[in-house]
């Protein structure tokens, strides 16, 4: 097995080659906060937080990004939305190697539901949350992250499963 792709180096070189002169500065921290589980998994309420741009199919076309439920770059979907109605609008993935046709490959809602059925986790939170990715690390840290936290607290979430695409 070869080494993992070094995306930070690869994207910097790629965009420099395309004429962008200022490389994107990825967020960097030496330390990381850590919270232990507060209760057994089998009693925990679980939410998904995802940047996979998950959306609900509607008969009249696409979902509006500026819908009334969105605050900044955060929006929420009922966790019991039927999987057949979900899809991703994300385009920043390896379109040459894979597809986003199987929602559970990046937004594991069915798999989590099965863990509930088996008693491995307690239950699903009523809402799952989406965050649109943006250029501004400050906005993500100061606006979006607190909004996700607020919604998780409101739903009495015990732990969060974080999924990019």
């Amino acid at each position: 097995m070869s080494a993992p792709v070094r995306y930070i180096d690869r994207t910097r070189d790629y965009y420099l080659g395309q004429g962008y002169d200022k490389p994107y500065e990825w967020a960097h921290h030496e330390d990381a906060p850590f919270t232990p589980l507060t209760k057994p998994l089998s009693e925990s309420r679980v939410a998904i937080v995802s940047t996979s741009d998950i959306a609900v199919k509607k008969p009249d076309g696409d979902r509006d990004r500026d819908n009334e439920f969105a605050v900044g770059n955060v929006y929420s979907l009922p966790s019991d939305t039927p999987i057949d109605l979900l899809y991703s609008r994300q385009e920043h993935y390896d379109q040459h190697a894979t597809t986003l046709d199987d929602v559970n490959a990046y937004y594991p809602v069915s798999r989590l539901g099965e863990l509930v059925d088996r008693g491995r986790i307690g239950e699903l939170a009523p809402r799952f949350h989406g965050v649109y990715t943006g250029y501004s690390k400050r906005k993500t840290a100061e606006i979006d992250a607190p909004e996700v936290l607020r919604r998780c607290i409101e739903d009495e979430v015990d732990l969060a499963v974080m999924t990019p695409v």
Partner: protein
Amino acid sequence: MSLVARHLEANGIPTVMFGTAKDIVEHCGVARFVFLDFPLGNSCGRSFDADHQHQILELGMQLLEHATAPRTTVQASGIWNDDDAWKQLIFTDDQPFLSGQALENWMTAKQRYRDKKAAGEL
């Protein structure tokens, strides 16, 4: 995504991250990370392979139960395919990351961002 995970952890909500970009996640630093060496788009397992997806998710559950310190990464099992062409080609001139409509959409979104910034809306 990592910044949001960090904020939840800092405020009392445990998290586990599933991802395919090991360097980006570890550069930022999160509490618990299940790394899968697959192309971007398959952070939670092979498409249409529920067994593999369960393996990945279970690794994350075990990490939640057993990790005692931040920056704990485990690598999930699974090889995308027999050759590593996708690793060699992603973000190279030979294979543009975005093309066609996806590229147009990205350029449009960037312009919208610039316009909003210029108008003082951001």
